């Protein structure tokens, strides 16, 4: 698989090089965004800023930099059910990227570093895209490599690695003057310590109750995701969009994601509404309650690996200001969006509830609210 991918990449790059120059692609616009984000749900609050600045240099180079933080306060079911107490932590992420334009080809490279007191993540990526057929088609291909370090705040000696590779192929296609479609295929493979060192599984003990032991995950995971996206311009100025993603991995998780969205401009404001539905099956080695200690080689009780669905309803608005320019600013927008998400687990029980027979606790569910407030300027 990897060898074919590399071979195809080389051929694709060579053919792009041979054909580059006929029609000019366009670099991303110069803009800056300042965003405040908030997630509140399941007794977890995550807030913080994200600042993104993009600037072009000459006709063929564009650079961007992003600063992002998560400030987490968590008393989630995963923390409380195992007897731990509420904790707070921060995650800081820096990214830089560069785009180089040559004819109708754009080559992009990026590096991201994410740091928190018990996890460090690094990702470097390279991608290339080309406009074809008089700019009706855009094809992109990309590769990313990640190297992370997993630590444990309760054990100074604990340090494990995770390596990750990502292969991506994308296509966007203008179908008619009112309809555009996109398709993406992404294969991700991980190797290393893939579970969360703090999380545990529960098993039935000999006295009729249950006890906890550390999770044990496989040390490799390979996943494939394929998505189709479409957007249609309605007879009045508005857009109707839809997407579907199929996901499968070698832990036997299959997931489907559906989304429909509607964008409606009104004077200086663009309104947006969306509905997203997500459903997944559980991993092979997942169980809410194992029959006895060490009952399997691999054991997981992360609710993220269980069978569940989530539904999201989101609304947003974007107000345009300085549309005729103001000083060095060409235009700007003030934006707000809120998503209401409900999570319903089909095989993850609320172990905080005391019952006589383990495994008969109510199934867990919770609601979350996700807020984004941001200002964007173009210059």
């Amino acid at each position, binding site marked *: 698989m990897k060898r074919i991918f590399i071979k195809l990449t080389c051929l694709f790059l060579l053919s792009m090089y041979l054909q580059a120059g006929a029609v000019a692609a366009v670099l991303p616009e110069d803009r800056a965004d300042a965003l405040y984000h908030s997630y509140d749900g399941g007794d977890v609050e995550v807030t913080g800023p994200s600042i993104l600045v993009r600037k072009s240099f000459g006709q063929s180079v564009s650079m961007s930099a992003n600063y992002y933080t998560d400030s987490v306060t968590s008393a989630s079911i995963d923390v409380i059910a195992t007897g731990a107490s509420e904790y707070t932590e921060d995650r800081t992420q820096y990214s830089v990227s560069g785009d180089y334009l040559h004819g109708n080809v754009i080559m992009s490279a990026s590096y991201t570093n*994410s740091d928190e007191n018990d996890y460090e993540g690094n990702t470097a990526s390279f991608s290339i895209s080309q406009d074809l057929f008089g700019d009706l088609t855009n094809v992109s291909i990309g590769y990313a490599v990640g190297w992370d370090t997993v630590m444990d705040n309760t054990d100074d000696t604990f340090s494990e690695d995770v390596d990750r590779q990502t292969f*991506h192929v994308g296509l966007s296609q203008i179908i008619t003057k009112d309809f555009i479609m996109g398709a993406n295929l992404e294969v991700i493979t991980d190797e290393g310590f893939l579970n969360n060192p703090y999380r545990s599984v529960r098993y039935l003990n000999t006295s009729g109750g249950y006890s906890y032991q550390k999770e044990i995950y496989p040390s490799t995971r390979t996943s494939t995701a394929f998505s189709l996206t479409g957007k249609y311009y309605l007879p009045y100025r508005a857009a109707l969009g839809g997407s579907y993603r199929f*996901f499968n991995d070698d832990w036997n998780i299959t997931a489907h994601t559906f989304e429909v969205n509607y964008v409606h401009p009104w004077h200086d404001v663009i309104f947006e509404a969306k509905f997203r539905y*997500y459903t997944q099956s559980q991993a092979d080695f997942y169980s809410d309650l194992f029959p006895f200690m060490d009952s399997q080689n691999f054991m997981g009780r992360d609710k993220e690996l269980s069978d569940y669905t989530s539904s999201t309803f989101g609304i947003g608005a974007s107000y345009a200001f300085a549309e005729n320019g103001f000083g060095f600013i060409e235009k700007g927008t003030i934006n707000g969006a809120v998503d209401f998400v409900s999570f319903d687990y089909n095989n993850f029980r609320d172990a905080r509830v005391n019952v006589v027979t383990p495994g008969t606790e109510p199934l867990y569910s919770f609601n979350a609210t996700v807020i984004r407030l941001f200002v964007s300027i173009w210059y």
Partner: protein
Amino acid sequence: MRIVSLLAFLSLLTACGVEPWVKPYERAHIADPIMSFSRDPVSDAYLQHVHEAREAARGAEGSSGGGCGCN
């Protein structure tokens, strides 16, 4: 030989011989910002992170990021 054939095929694909069926002057609707798949990258990257931290599914959504912040 197969590689040469594939290269020739890809070169043909990328050549400008195909007549665009939607002319440049017919693309006003497609070029409207409301038709963009990702109008605001900073907002979309954040939402992608929210999904990845809570769902087993990953990939084929767009930009990439690192870390978790999801305990």
